[in-house]
Protein backbone atom coordinates (compact mmCIF):
# COMPACT_ATOMS: atom_id res chain seq x y z
CA UNK A 1 0.00 0.00 0.00
CA UNK A 2 1.36 3.35 -0.95
CA UNK A 3 1.49 6.26 1.44
CA UNK A 4 -0.59 8.38 -0.91
CA UNK A 5 -4.16 8.88 0.23
CA UNK A 6 -5.31 8.94 -3.37
CA UNK A 7 -3.57 7.18 -6.20
CA UNK A 8 -5.14 7.33 -9.63
CA UNK A 9 -3.64 5.77 -12.69
CA UNK A 10 -4.85 5.59 -16.26
CA UNK A 11 -8.27 7.12 -15.66
CA UNK A 12 -10.33 7.58 -18.80
CA UNK A 13 -13.90 8.79 -19.12
CA UNK A 14 -16.07 8.58 -22.18
CA UNK A 15 -19.66 9.33 -23.05
CA UNK A 16 -22.05 7.66 -25.42
CA UNK A 17 -22.43 4.09 -26.53
CA UNK A 18 -19.80 2.08 -28.35
CA UNK A 19 -20.93 3.55 -31.67
CA UNK A 20 -20.63 7.24 -30.84
CA UNK A 21 -18.07 7.16 -28.10
CA UNK A 22 -16.69 10.52 -27.14
CA UNK A 23 -13.62 10.44 -24.99
CA UNK A 24 -13.53 13.35 -22.56
CA UNK A 25 -10.82 12.34 -20.13
CA UNK A 26 -7.80 10.37 -21.29
CA UNK A 27 -5.28 8.47 -19.25
CA UNK A 28 -5.18 10.74 -16.22
CA UNK A 29 -2.79 9.75 -13.45
CA UNK A 30 -1.95 11.52 -10.23
CA UNK A 31 -1.26 10.97 -6.58
CA UNK A 32 -2.27 12.99 -3.57
CA UNK A 33 -0.29 12.72 -0.37
CA UNK A 34 -1.88 12.92 3.05
CA UNK A 35 -2.45 16.47 4.27
CA UNK A 36 -1.45 17.88 0.92
CA UNK A 37 -3.29 20.53 -1.07
CA UNK A 38 -3.43 19.49 -4.69
CA UNK A 39 -4.57 22.03 -7.24
CA UNK A 40 -6.13 20.91 -10.48
CA UNK A 41 -6.22 23.67 -13.04
CA UNK A 42 -7.53 23.84 -16.55
CA UNK A 43 -10.04 25.66 -18.63
CA UNK A 44 -13.74 24.82 -18.85
CA UNK A 45 -14.27 21.41 -20.38
CA UNK A 46 -10.78 20.18 -19.62
CA UNK A 47 -12.19 17.35 -17.53
CA UNK A 48 -11.21 18.56 -14.07
CA UNK A 49 -14.63 18.21 -12.52
CA UNK A 50 -15.46 14.99 -14.36
CA UNK A 51 -12.24 13.45 -13.08
CA UNK A 52 -13.21 14.31 -9.51
CA UNK A 53 -16.81 13.19 -9.87
CA UNK A 54 -15.73 9.90 -11.37
CA UNK A 55 -13.77 9.08 -8.22
CA UNK A 56 -17.02 9.13 -6.25
CA UNK A 57 -18.84 7.48 -9.15
CA UNK A 58 -21.08 10.53 -9.43
CA UNK A 59 -20.83 10.84 -13.19
CA UNK A 60 -24.07 11.42 -15.08
CA UNK A 61 -25.74 8.47 -16.71
CA UNK A 62 -24.16 7.40 -19.93
CA UNK A 63 -20.65 8.20 -18.79
CA UNK A 64 -18.15 5.40 -18.63
CA UNK A 65 -15.10 5.72 -16.39
CA UNK A 66 -12.28 3.22 -16.37
CA UNK A 67 -8.98 3.26 -14.58
CA UNK A 68 -5.99 1.03 -14.13
CA UNK A 69 -6.02 2.09 -10.52
CA UNK A 70 -8.18 4.44 -8.47
CA UNK A 71 -7.15 3.72 -4.97
CA UNK A 72 -8.20 5.71 -1.96
CA UNK A 73 -6.31 4.75 1.15
CA UNK A 74 -5.62 1.32 -0.29
CA UNK A 75 -9.17 0.65 -1.44
CA UNK A 76 -10.14 0.57 -5.07
CA UNK A 77 -12.87 3.18 -5.54
CA UNK A 78 -14.03 1.63 -8.79
CA UNK A 79 -14.79 -1.78 -7.33
CA UNK A 80 -16.60 -0.75 -4.13
CA UNK A 81 -19.96 -2.28 -3.38
CA UNK A 82 -22.85 0.22 -3.39
CA UNK A 83 -22.99 0.13 0.41
CA UNK A 84 -19.26 0.75 0.76
CA UNK A 85 -19.50 3.50 -1.82
CA UNK A 86 -22.16 5.28 0.21
CA UNK A 87 -19.85 5.08 3.18
CA UNK A 88 -17.01 6.66 1.25
CA UNK A 89 -19.17 9.46 -0.12
CA UNK A 90 -19.39 12.20 2.46
CA UNK A 91 -17.76 10.08 5.15
CA UNK A 92 -14.28 9.71 3.66
CA UNK A 93 -14.37 11.96 0.62
CA UNK A 94 -16.56 15.04 0.67
CA UNK A 95 -17.23 17.55 -2.05
CA UNK A 96 -17.83 21.29 -1.89
CA UNK A 97 -19.58 22.29 -5.08
CA UNK A 98 -19.14 25.34 -7.20
CA UNK A 99 -22.51 26.96 -6.77
CA UNK A 100 -23.77 27.14 -3.20
CA UNK A 101 -27.11 28.42 -4.47
CA UNK A 102 -27.97 25.17 -6.18
CA UNK A 103 -26.09 22.88 -3.78
CA UNK A 104 -28.60 23.57 -1.01
CA UNK A 105 -32.16 22.33 -1.02
CA UNK A 106 -34.46 25.37 -1.00
CA UNK A 107 -37.27 23.70 0.93
CA UNK A 108 -35.27 22.29 3.83
CA UNK A 109 -33.80 24.25 6.70
CA UNK A 110 -30.04 24.45 6.98
CA UNK A 111 -30.24 22.50 10.20
CA UNK A 112 -32.18 19.72 8.55
CA UNK A 113 -29.68 19.45 5.74
CA UNK A 114 -26.69 19.27 8.05
CA UNK A 115 -28.24 16.87 10.54
CA UNK A 116 -29.32 14.71 7.63
CA UNK A 117 -25.65 13.99 6.88
CA UNK A 118 -24.88 13.38 10.55
CA UNK A 119 -27.74 10.96 10.99
CA UNK A 120 -26.82 9.20 7.79
CA UNK A 121 -23.21 8.56 8.71
CA UNK A 122 -23.17 8.44 12.49
CA UNK A 123 -26.75 7.42 13.28
CA UNK A 124 -26.73 10.35 15.70
CA UNK A 125 -29.74 11.05 17.84
CA UNK A 126 -31.66 14.22 17.03
CA UNK A 127 -30.16 16.14 19.95
CA UNK A 128 -26.61 14.98 19.23
CA UNK A 129 -26.97 15.88 15.59
CA UNK A 130 -28.25 19.33 16.49
CA UNK A 131 -25.43 19.96 18.91
CA UNK A 132 -22.91 18.84 16.31
CA UNK A 133 -24.55 21.03 13.68
CA UNK A 134 -24.14 24.05 15.94
CA UNK A 135 -20.45 23.18 16.34
CA UNK A 136 -20.04 22.80 12.60
CA UNK A 137 -21.63 26.15 11.84
CA UNK A 138 -19.44 27.76 14.46
CA UNK A 139 -16.34 26.17 12.96
CA UNK A 140 -17.11 27.61 9.53
CA UNK A 141 -17.62 31.05 11.03
CA UNK A 142 -21.38 31.47 10.88
CA UNK A 143 -22.60 33.66 13.73
CA UNK A 144 -25.58 32.69 15.87
CA UNK A 145 -25.81 29.01 14.77
CA UNK A 146 -28.96 28.10 16.77
CA UNK A 147 -30.91 30.74 14.86
CA UNK A 148 -29.28 30.00 11.51
CA UNK A 149 -30.07 26.30 11.77
CA UNK A 150 -33.74 27.12 11.63
CA UNK A 151 -33.41 29.21 8.50
CA UNK A 152 -33.74 28.31 4.85
CA UNK A 153 -31.05 28.72 2.20
CA UNK A 154 -32.65 31.83 0.72
CA UNK A 155 -32.09 33.61 4.02
CA UNK A 156 -28.33 33.30 3.58
CA UNK A 157 -25.95 35.35 1.46
CA UNK A 158 -23.81 33.63 -1.16
CA UNK A 159 -20.74 33.50 1.03
CA UNK A 160 -22.72 32.26 4.01
CA UNK A 161 -24.29 29.57 1.84
CA UNK A 162 -20.89 28.38 0.78
CA UNK A 163 -19.90 28.22 4.44
CA UNK A 164 -22.97 26.07 5.02
CA UNK A 165 -22.04 23.68 2.22
CA UNK A 166 -18.55 23.47 3.70
CA UNK A 167 -20.07 22.67 7.08
CA UNK A 168 -22.17 19.98 5.39
CA UNK A 169 -19.10 18.57 3.69
CA UNK A 170 -17.27 18.45 7.01
CA UNK A 171 -20.22 16.87 8.81
CA UNK A 172 -19.09 13.40 7.76
CA UNK A 173 -15.59 14.11 9.06
CA UNK A 174 -13.99 13.25 5.74
CA UNK A 175 -10.27 12.83 5.20
CA UNK A 176 -10.29 14.12 1.67
CA UNK A 177 -12.12 17.27 0.66
CA UNK A 178 -12.69 17.99 -2.99
CA UNK A 179 -13.32 21.69 -3.46
CA UNK A 180 -14.78 22.04 -6.94
CA UNK A 181 -14.34 25.70 -7.80
CA UNK A 182 -15.74 26.70 -4.41
CA UNK A 183 -15.19 30.39 -4.98
CA UNK A 184 -16.19 30.79 -8.63
CA UNK A 185 -19.79 31.73 -7.95
CA UNK A 186 -18.91 34.13 -5.18
CA UNK A 187 -18.22 37.80 -4.84
CA UNK A 188 -14.56 38.64 -5.09
CA UNK A 189 -14.52 40.00 -1.57
CA UNK A 190 -15.96 36.78 -0.23
CA UNK A 191 -13.67 34.48 -2.21
CA UNK A 192 -10.67 35.15 -0.03
CA UNK A 193 -12.67 34.43 3.12
CA UNK A 194 -13.80 31.05 1.82
CA UNK A 195 -10.29 30.12 0.71
CA UNK A 196 -8.86 31.10 4.09
CA UNK A 197 -11.61 29.14 5.81
CA UNK A 198 -10.89 25.94 3.89
CA UNK A 199 -7.16 26.38 4.51
CA UNK A 200 -7.74 26.80 8.22
CA UNK A 201 -10.00 23.74 8.34
CA UNK A 202 -7.39 21.80 6.42
CA UNK A 203 -4.77 22.65 9.03
CA UNK A 204 -7.02 22.03 12.02
CA UNK A 205 -8.45 18.74 10.87
CA UNK A 206 -5.48 17.43 8.93
CA UNK A 207 -7.56 17.28 5.78
CA UNK A 208 -6.26 16.52 2.35
CA UNK A 209 -7.74 18.99 -0.10
CA UNK A 210 -8.06 18.87 -3.85
CA UNK A 211 -8.76 22.30 -5.31
CA UNK A 212 -10.39 22.23 -8.70
CA UNK A 213 -10.19 25.66 -10.24
CA UNK A 214 -9.26 27.69 -13.25
CA UNK A 215 -7.76 30.35 -11.05
CA UNK A 216 -4.04 29.89 -11.26
CA UNK A 217 -3.35 32.89 -9.07
CA UNK A 218 -5.31 31.24 -6.30
CA UNK A 219 -3.36 28.01 -6.60
CA UNK A 220 -0.09 29.88 -6.39
CA UNK A 221 -1.09 30.79 -2.85
CA UNK A 222 -2.57 27.58 -1.56
CA UNK A 223 -1.48 24.49 -3.48
CA UNK A 224 1.42 22.20 -2.68
CA UNK A 225 1.22 20.50 -6.05
CA UNK A 226 -0.52 21.52 -9.22
CA UNK A 227 -1.95 19.32 -11.94
CA UNK A 228 -2.49 21.14 -15.21
CA UNK A 229 -5.15 19.58 -17.40
CA UNK A 230 -5.87 20.29 -21.01
CA UNK A 231 -8.57 18.64 -23.13
CA UNK A 232 -8.98 15.76 -20.76
CA UNK A 233 -5.28 15.03 -20.28
CA UNK A 234 -2.71 15.86 -17.66
CA UNK A 235 -0.15 18.01 -19.43
CA UNK A 236 1.91 18.94 -16.43
CA UNK A 237 2.13 17.84 -12.82
CA UNK A 238 4.62 19.69 -10.66
CA UNK A 239 5.18 21.02 -7.17
CA UNK A 240 3.57 24.44 -7.02
CA UNK A 241 6.86 26.24 -6.52
CA UNK A 242 8.43 24.69 -9.58
CA UNK A 243 5.40 25.17 -11.76
CA UNK A 244 5.11 28.83 -11.04
CA UNK A 245 8.84 29.42 -11.27
CA UNK A 246 9.47 27.35 -14.37
CA UNK A 247 6.48 25.85 -16.17
CA UNK A 248 7.53 23.15 -18.62
CA UNK A 249 4.53 22.58 -20.84
CA UNK A 250 3.70 25.31 -23.35
CA UNK A 251 0.10 25.34 -22.14
CA UNK A 252 1.19 25.85 -18.52
CA UNK A 253 3.41 28.66 -19.68
CA UNK A 254 0.52 30.20 -21.58
CA UNK A 255 -1.71 29.95 -18.55
CA UNK A 256 0.87 31.58 -16.37
CA UNK A 257 1.46 34.19 -19.02
CA UNK A 258 -2.17 35.10 -18.89
CA UNK A 259 -1.88 36.13 -15.27
CA UNK A 260 1.69 37.36 -15.18
CA UNK A 261 2.44 40.75 -16.58
CA UNK A 262 6.13 40.02 -16.96
CA UNK A 263 5.58 37.10 -19.31
CA UNK A 264 6.72 37.43 -22.91
CA UNK A 265 4.14 38.88 -25.25
CA UNK A 266 4.18 35.74 -27.37
CA UNK A 267 2.80 33.63 -24.55
CA UNK A 268 0.13 36.08 -23.63
CA UNK A 269 -1.06 36.21 -27.19
CA UNK A 270 -1.47 32.43 -27.28
CA UNK A 271 -4.05 32.62 -24.53
CA UNK A 272 -6.47 34.32 -26.85
CA UNK A 273 -6.44 31.59 -29.47
CA UNK A 274 -9.92 30.11 -29.49
CA UNK A 275 -10.38 26.52 -28.51
CA UNK A 276 -11.41 24.73 -31.69
CA UNK A 277 -13.25 21.51 -31.07
CA UNK A 278 -10.45 20.03 -29.07
CA UNK A 279 -11.29 16.38 -29.28
CA UNK A 280 -9.51 14.60 -26.51
CA UNK A 281 -9.67 11.37 -28.46
CA UNK A 282 -8.05 12.69 -31.63
CA UNK A 283 -4.55 11.83 -32.66
CA UNK A 284 -1.73 14.16 -31.85
CA UNK A 285 -1.18 16.57 -29.00
CA UNK A 286 -4.51 18.22 -28.16
CA UNK A 287 -2.76 21.51 -27.57
CA UNK A 288 -1.04 21.52 -30.94
CA UNK A 289 -3.59 23.79 -32.70
CA UNK A 290 -2.96 26.52 -30.12
CA UNK A 291 0.67 25.84 -29.44
CA UNK A 292 3.25 28.31 -30.69
CA UNK A 293 5.85 25.57 -30.77
CA UNK A 294 3.88 22.86 -32.48
CA UNK A 295 5.61 20.83 -35.13
CA UNK A 296 4.73 17.92 -37.41
CA UNK A 297 5.25 15.31 -34.69
CA UNK A 298 2.83 17.13 -32.35
CA UNK A 299 0.00 16.93 -34.84
CA UNK A 300 0.36 13.21 -35.43
CA UNK A 301 1.46 11.60 -32.20
CA UNK A 302 0.19 12.43 -28.77
CA UNK A 303 3.01 13.05 -26.31
CA UNK A 304 3.14 10.98 -23.13
CA UNK A 305 3.75 12.15 -19.60
CA UNK A 306 7.41 11.89 -18.72
CA UNK A 307 9.20 12.60 -15.52
CA UNK A 308 11.54 15.55 -15.50
CA UNK A 309 13.76 16.38 -12.58
CA UNK A 310 12.33 13.81 -10.19
CA UNK A 311 9.04 15.37 -9.16
CA UNK A 312 7.70 17.00 -12.29
CA UNK A 313 5.80 15.33 -15.07
CA UNK A 314 4.94 16.90 -18.37
CA UNK A 315 3.62 15.77 -21.73
CA UNK A 316 5.29 17.64 -24.54
CA UNK A 317 7.54 16.52 -27.40
CA UNK A 318 9.39 19.78 -27.36
CA UNK A 319 10.77 19.05 -23.92
CA UNK A 320 12.68 16.02 -25.22
CA UNK A 321 14.89 17.56 -27.85
CA UNK A 322 15.49 20.69 -25.85
CA UNK A 323 14.32 22.94 -28.63
CA UNK A 324 11.68 24.51 -26.45
CA UNK A 325 12.67 27.62 -24.65
CA UNK A 326 13.97 26.42 -21.35
CA UNK A 327 12.53 27.64 -18.11
CA UNK A 328 15.25 30.18 -17.59
CA UNK A 329 15.65 31.39 -21.13
Amino acid at each position, binding site marked *: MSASILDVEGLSISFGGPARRKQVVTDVSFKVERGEALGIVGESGSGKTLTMLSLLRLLPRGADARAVRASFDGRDLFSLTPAALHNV*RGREIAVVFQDPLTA*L*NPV*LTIGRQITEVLRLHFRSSATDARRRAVELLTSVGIPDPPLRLRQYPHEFSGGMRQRVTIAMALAGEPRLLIADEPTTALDVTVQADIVTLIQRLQREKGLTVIWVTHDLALLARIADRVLVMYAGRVVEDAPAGKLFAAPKHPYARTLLGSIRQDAPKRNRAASSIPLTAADAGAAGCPFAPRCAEAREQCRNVSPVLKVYGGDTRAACWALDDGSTRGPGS
Partner: protein
Amino acid sequence: MKFPMSLYRSPQTRTGLILLTFVVVVALAAPLLAPFSPVNVDPSARLLPPLSRGLASSAQSGAPAVHAETALHLLGTDSVGRDVLSRLIYGSRLSLTVGFLAVLISAVFGSLVGSLSGYWGGWVEASSAWLIDVQLSFPFLLLAIFLLGALGGGTLAVVLVLALGTWVNYARIVRAQVLSIKNQGYVEAAHATGAGTLRILFVHILPNTLSPICVVGSFSMALAILTEAGLSFLGVGLDPSTPSWGTMLNDGRDYLLTAWWIATMPGIAIGVTVLGVTLFGEGLRELLDPRGLR
Protein backbone atom coordinates in the same frame (compact mmCIF):
# COMPACT_ATOMS: atom_id res chain seq x y z
CA MET B 1 -46.62 32.08 11.09
CA LYS B 2 -45.91 33.85 7.83
CA PHE B 3 -47.72 31.19 5.85
CA PRO B 4 -51.26 31.42 7.33
CA MET B 5 -51.06 35.19 7.48
CA SER B 6 -50.41 35.63 3.79
CA LEU B 7 -53.25 33.23 3.08
CA TYR B 8 -55.50 35.49 5.07
CA ARG B 9 -54.56 38.66 3.25
CA SER B 10 -56.33 38.12 -0.04
CA PRO B 11 -60.11 38.65 0.30
CA GLN B 12 -60.92 35.69 -1.97
CA THR B 13 -58.77 33.29 -0.05
CA ARG B 14 -60.08 34.69 3.19
CA THR B 15 -63.63 33.95 2.06
CA GLY B 16 -62.60 30.43 1.13
CA LEU B 17 -60.86 29.95 4.42
CA ILE B 18 -63.87 31.20 6.39
CA LEU B 19 -66.32 29.00 4.46
CA LEU B 20 -64.05 25.99 4.85
CA THR B 21 -63.52 26.61 8.56
CA PHE B 22 -67.26 26.97 9.01
CA VAL B 23 -67.96 23.62 7.34
CA VAL B 24 -65.19 21.91 9.30
CA VAL B 25 -66.43 23.32 12.61
CA VAL B 26 -70.00 22.25 11.80
CA ALA B 27 -68.77 18.76 10.94
CA LEU B 28 -66.75 18.48 14.13
CA ALA B 29 -69.51 19.81 16.36
CA ALA B 30 -72.36 17.99 14.60
CA PRO B 31 -73.82 16.29 17.70
CA LEU B 32 -73.89 19.60 19.53
CA LEU B 33 -75.37 21.60 16.69
CA ALA B 34 -77.98 19.24 15.28
CA PRO B 35 -81.38 19.84 16.87
CA PHE B 36 -82.70 16.41 15.85
CA SER B 37 -81.32 12.99 15.11
CA PRO B 38 -80.31 12.79 11.45
CA VAL B 39 -81.79 9.32 10.97
CA ASN B 40 -84.90 9.24 13.15
CA VAL B 41 -88.04 8.95 11.13
CA ASP B 42 -91.07 10.91 12.34
CA PRO B 43 -94.23 10.13 10.30
CA SER B 44 -96.11 12.94 11.99
CA ALA B 45 -93.67 15.52 10.73
CA ARG B 46 -93.41 14.63 7.04
CA LEU B 47 -92.59 17.29 4.47
CA LEU B 48 -92.77 20.19 6.89
CA PRO B 49 -91.63 23.41 5.27
CA PRO B 50 -88.78 25.39 6.79
CA LEU B 51 -89.41 27.28 10.02
CA SER B 52 -92.23 25.03 11.18
CA ARG B 53 -92.56 22.94 14.30
CA GLY B 54 -93.51 19.31 14.43
CA LEU B 55 -95.79 17.74 17.00
CA ALA B 56 -94.32 15.43 19.60
CA SER B 57 -96.95 12.85 20.36
CA SER B 58 -96.77 10.96 23.60
CA ALA B 59 -99.35 8.42 22.45
CA GLN B 60 -97.21 5.45 23.30
CA SER B 61 -97.42 6.19 27.02
CA GLY B 62 -101.07 5.19 27.06
CA ALA B 63 -102.24 8.46 28.46
CA PRO B 64 -104.48 10.67 26.32
CA ALA B 65 -102.37 12.10 23.56
CA VAL B 66 -100.75 15.32 24.56
CA HIS B 67 -99.61 17.25 21.56
CA ALA B 68 -96.71 19.42 22.39
CA GLU B 69 -94.75 21.31 19.81
CA THR B 70 -91.23 20.07 19.16
CA ALA B 71 -88.20 22.20 18.46
CA LEU B 72 -88.17 24.28 15.32
CA HIS B 73 -87.42 22.49 12.01
CA LEU B 74 -85.35 25.37 10.73
CA LEU B 75 -84.95 23.94 7.24
CA GLY B 76 -88.03 21.75 7.25
CA THR B 77 -88.28 17.97 7.08
CA ASP B 78 -88.07 15.42 4.31
CA SER B 79 -90.53 12.84 3.03
CA VAL B 80 -90.17 10.61 6.08
CA GLY B 81 -90.02 13.39 8.62
CA ARG B 82 -86.29 13.63 9.17
CA ASP B 83 -84.98 17.08 10.02
CA VAL B 84 -83.21 18.52 6.98
CA LEU B 85 -80.89 20.76 8.99
CA SER B 86 -79.73 17.90 11.17
CA ARG B 87 -79.10 15.69 8.17
CA LEU B 88 -77.26 18.55 6.53
CA ILE B 89 -75.05 18.98 9.58
CA TYR B 90 -74.22 15.30 9.81
CA GLY B 91 -73.84 15.13 6.05
CA SER B 92 -70.95 17.60 6.24
CA ARG B 93 -69.00 14.98 8.19
CA LEU B 94 -69.44 12.49 5.46
CA SER B 95 -68.69 14.85 2.61
CA LEU B 96 -65.51 16.12 4.25
CA THR B 97 -64.36 12.65 5.25
CA VAL B 98 -64.97 11.21 1.82
CA GLY B 99 -63.34 14.19 0.12
CA PHE B 100 -60.35 14.22 2.42
CA LEU B 101 -59.72 10.49 2.36
CA ALA B 102 -60.10 10.31 -1.40
CA VAL B 103 -57.58 13.12 -1.82
CA LEU B 104 -55.19 11.59 0.69
CA ILE B 105 -55.21 8.14 -0.88
CA SER B 106 -54.96 9.38 -4.44
CA ALA B 107 -52.25 11.93 -3.55
CA VAL B 108 -50.10 9.36 -1.77
CA PHE B 109 -50.50 6.72 -4.43
CA GLY B 110 -50.20 9.12 -7.35
CA SER B 111 -47.13 10.86 -5.94
CA LEU B 112 -45.47 7.54 -5.29
CA VAL B 113 -46.03 6.32 -8.82
CA GLY B 114 -45.04 9.70 -10.26
CA SER B 115 -41.87 10.05 -8.25
CA LEU B 116 -40.68 6.53 -8.87
CA SER B 117 -41.28 6.78 -12.59
CA GLY B 118 -39.67 10.22 -12.77
CA TYR B 119 -36.66 9.19 -10.74
CA TRP B 120 -35.86 5.82 -12.19
CA GLY B 121 -37.19 6.11 -15.70
CA GLY B 122 -36.75 2.96 -17.76
CA TRP B 123 -39.25 0.18 -17.28
CA VAL B 124 -40.73 1.79 -14.15
CA GLU B 125 -41.63 4.82 -16.19
CA ALA B 126 -42.89 2.79 -19.11
CA SER B 127 -45.18 0.67 -16.96
CA SER B 128 -46.57 3.60 -14.99
CA ALA B 129 -47.19 5.53 -18.20
CA TRP B 130 -49.10 2.49 -19.44
CA LEU B 131 -51.09 2.39 -16.21
CA ILE B 132 -51.95 6.08 -16.55
CA ASP B 133 -53.04 5.64 -20.14
CA VAL B 134 -55.27 2.72 -19.22
CA GLN B 135 -56.76 4.75 -16.40
CA LEU B 136 -57.40 7.75 -18.61
CA SER B 137 -58.99 5.71 -21.38
CA PHE B 138 -61.94 4.79 -19.14
CA PRO B 139 -64.68 7.39 -18.73
CA PHE B 140 -64.57 7.97 -15.00
CA LEU B 141 -68.29 7.97 -14.29
CA LEU B 142 -68.76 4.71 -16.14
CA LEU B 143 -65.90 3.13 -14.26
CA ALA B 144 -67.26 4.45 -10.97
CA ILE B 145 -70.76 3.14 -11.57
CA PHE B 146 -69.39 -0.22 -12.64
CA LEU B 147 -67.04 -0.54 -9.69
CA LEU B 148 -69.55 0.65 -7.12
CA GLY B 149 -72.05 -1.78 -8.53
CA ALA B 150 -69.51 -4.56 -8.13
CA LEU B 151 -68.26 -3.46 -4.72
CA GLY B 152 -71.76 -2.76 -3.46
CA GLY B 153 -71.42 0.87 -2.44
CA GLY B 154 -70.54 2.04 1.04
CA THR B 155 -68.30 4.83 2.23
CA LEU B 156 -65.01 3.00 1.79
CA ALA B 157 -65.89 1.88 -1.72
CA VAL B 158 -66.82 5.45 -2.68
CA VAL B 159 -63.54 6.74 -1.28
CA LEU B 160 -61.53 4.16 -3.19
CA VAL B 161 -63.36 4.82 -6.43
CA LEU B 162 -62.84 8.56 -6.09
CA ALA B 163 -59.15 8.01 -5.37
CA LEU B 164 -58.92 5.79 -8.42
CA GLY B 165 -60.29 8.59 -10.53
CA THR B 166 -57.82 11.24 -9.47
CA TRP B 167 -54.44 9.63 -8.69
CA VAL B 168 -53.40 10.12 -12.30
CA ASN B 169 -53.27 13.91 -11.82
CA TYR B 170 -50.76 13.58 -9.02
CA ALA B 171 -48.69 11.00 -10.83
CA ARG B 172 -48.30 13.24 -13.86
CA ILE B 173 -47.49 16.39 -11.94
CA VAL B 174 -45.08 14.75 -9.54
CA ARG B 175 -43.32 12.95 -12.35
CA ALA B 176 -42.74 16.21 -14.21
CA GLN B 177 -41.45 17.85 -11.03
CA VAL B 178 -39.14 14.99 -10.17
CA LEU B 179 -37.73 14.99 -13.68
CA SER B 180 -36.53 18.54 -13.26
CA ILE B 181 -35.57 18.32 -9.59
CA LYS B 182 -33.44 15.21 -9.88
CA ASN B 183 -30.92 17.16 -11.93
CA GLN B 184 -30.64 19.99 -9.42
CA GLY B 185 -27.35 20.69 -7.73
CA TYR B 186 -28.59 19.79 -4.29
CA VAL B 187 -29.55 16.32 -5.42
CA GLU B 188 -26.06 15.81 -6.78
CA ALA B 189 -24.71 17.22 -3.52
CA ALA B 190 -26.87 14.76 -1.59
CA HIS B 191 -25.43 11.93 -3.66
CA ALA B 192 -21.99 13.21 -2.79
CA THR B 193 -22.76 13.03 0.92
CA GLY B 194 -23.53 9.35 0.52
CA ALA B 195 -27.31 9.49 0.70
CA GLY B 196 -29.08 6.48 -0.77
CA THR B 197 -31.81 6.52 -3.38
CA LEU B 198 -34.75 6.40 -0.99
CA ARG B 199 -33.31 9.09 1.23
CA ILE B 200 -32.73 11.33 -1.76
CA LEU B 201 -36.21 10.69 -3.05
CA PHE B 202 -38.05 11.27 0.21
CA VAL B 203 -35.87 13.85 1.93
CA HIS B 204 -34.57 15.92 -0.94
CA ILE B 205 -36.94 15.54 -3.88
CA LEU B 206 -40.47 14.95 -2.60
CA PRO B 207 -40.61 18.02 -0.29
CA ASN B 208 -40.02 20.11 -3.39
CA THR B 209 -43.10 18.68 -5.06
CA LEU B 210 -45.31 19.37 -2.07
CA SER B 211 -46.70 22.70 -3.22
CA PRO B 212 -48.17 21.49 -6.52
CA ILE B 213 -49.52 18.44 -4.69
CA CYS B 214 -51.28 20.73 -2.20
CA VAL B 215 -52.81 22.80 -4.97
CA VAL B 216 -54.04 19.83 -6.97
CA GLY B 217 -55.22 18.29 -3.72
CA SER B 218 -57.42 21.21 -2.80
CA PHE B 219 -59.04 21.32 -6.21
CA SER B 220 -59.62 17.61 -6.37
CA MET B 221 -61.11 17.69 -2.90
CA ALA B 222 -63.81 20.01 -4.24
CA LEU B 223 -64.24 17.65 -7.16
CA ALA B 224 -64.38 14.61 -4.87
CA ILE B 225 -67.12 16.16 -2.75
CA LEU B 226 -69.06 16.99 -5.86
CA THR B 227 -68.55 13.54 -7.37
CA GLU B 228 -69.54 11.81 -4.15
CA ALA B 229 -72.77 13.79 -4.15
CA GLY B 230 -73.24 12.93 -7.80
CA LEU B 231 -72.71 9.22 -7.24
CA SER B 232 -75.02 9.17 -4.25
CA PHE B 233 -77.57 11.09 -6.29
CA LEU B 234 -77.33 8.45 -8.99
CA GLY B 235 -77.96 5.90 -6.29
CA VAL B 236 -74.69 4.00 -6.67
CA GLY B 237 -72.82 5.77 -3.91
CA LEU B 238 -73.66 5.71 -0.27
CA ASP B 239 -76.44 3.82 1.42
CA PRO B 240 -79.64 5.93 1.11
CA SER B 241 -80.16 6.04 4.88
CA THR B 242 -76.72 7.62 5.42
CA PRO B 243 -77.03 11.34 5.96
CA SER B 244 -75.05 12.52 2.97
CA TRP B 245 -75.64 15.54 0.79
CA GLY B 246 -75.80 13.39 -2.29
CA THR B 247 -78.40 11.00 -0.90
CA MET B 248 -80.41 13.99 0.32
CA LEU B 249 -80.42 15.42 -3.19
CA ASN B 250 -81.61 12.10 -4.44
CA ASP B 251 -84.36 11.97 -1.81
CA GLY B 252 -85.57 15.44 -2.65
CA ARG B 253 -85.67 14.91 -6.39
CA ASP B 254 -89.26 13.60 -6.34
CA TYR B 255 -90.49 16.52 -4.28
CA LEU B 256 -88.79 19.34 -6.12
CA LEU B 257 -92.09 21.01 -6.91
CA THR B 258 -93.93 20.32 -3.69
CA ALA B 259 -91.16 20.41 -1.11
CA TRP B 260 -88.30 22.33 -2.73
CA TRP B 261 -86.27 22.61 0.49
CA ILE B 262 -85.34 18.92 0.63
CA ALA B 263 -83.13 19.08 -2.45
CA THR B 264 -82.26 22.77 -2.33
CA MET B 265 -80.63 22.82 1.10
CA PRO B 266 -78.04 20.09 0.40
CA GLY B 267 -77.44 21.75 -2.95
CA ILE B 268 -76.56 24.98 -1.20
CA ALA B 269 -74.36 23.13 1.27
CA ILE B 270 -72.46 21.44 -1.55
CA GLY B 271 -72.11 24.76 -3.34
CA VAL B 272 -70.78 26.53 -0.25
CA THR B 273 -68.27 23.80 0.58
CA VAL B 274 -66.98 23.42 -2.95
CA LEU B 275 -66.70 27.19 -3.27
CA GLY B 276 -64.77 27.38 -0.01
CA VAL B 277 -62.35 24.63 -0.98
CA THR B 278 -61.85 26.08 -4.45
CA LEU B 279 -61.20 29.62 -3.25
CA PHE B 280 -58.80 28.25 -0.69
CA GLY B 281 -57.05 26.19 -3.35
CA GLU B 282 -56.81 29.23 -5.62
CA GLY B 283 -55.15 31.18 -2.82
CA LEU B 284 -52.85 28.30 -2.07
CA ARG B 285 -51.81 28.17 -5.69
CA GLU B 286 -51.07 31.87 -5.80
CA LEU B 287 -49.07 31.56 -2.61
CA LEU B 288 -47.09 28.52 -3.67
CA ASP B 289 -46.55 29.51 -7.26
CA PRO B 290 -42.78 29.84 -7.65
CA ARG B 291 -43.20 33.02 -9.68
CA GLY B 292 -45.06 34.69 -6.85
CA LEU B 293 -42.73 33.29 -4.25
CA ARG B 294 -40.64 35.69 -2.23
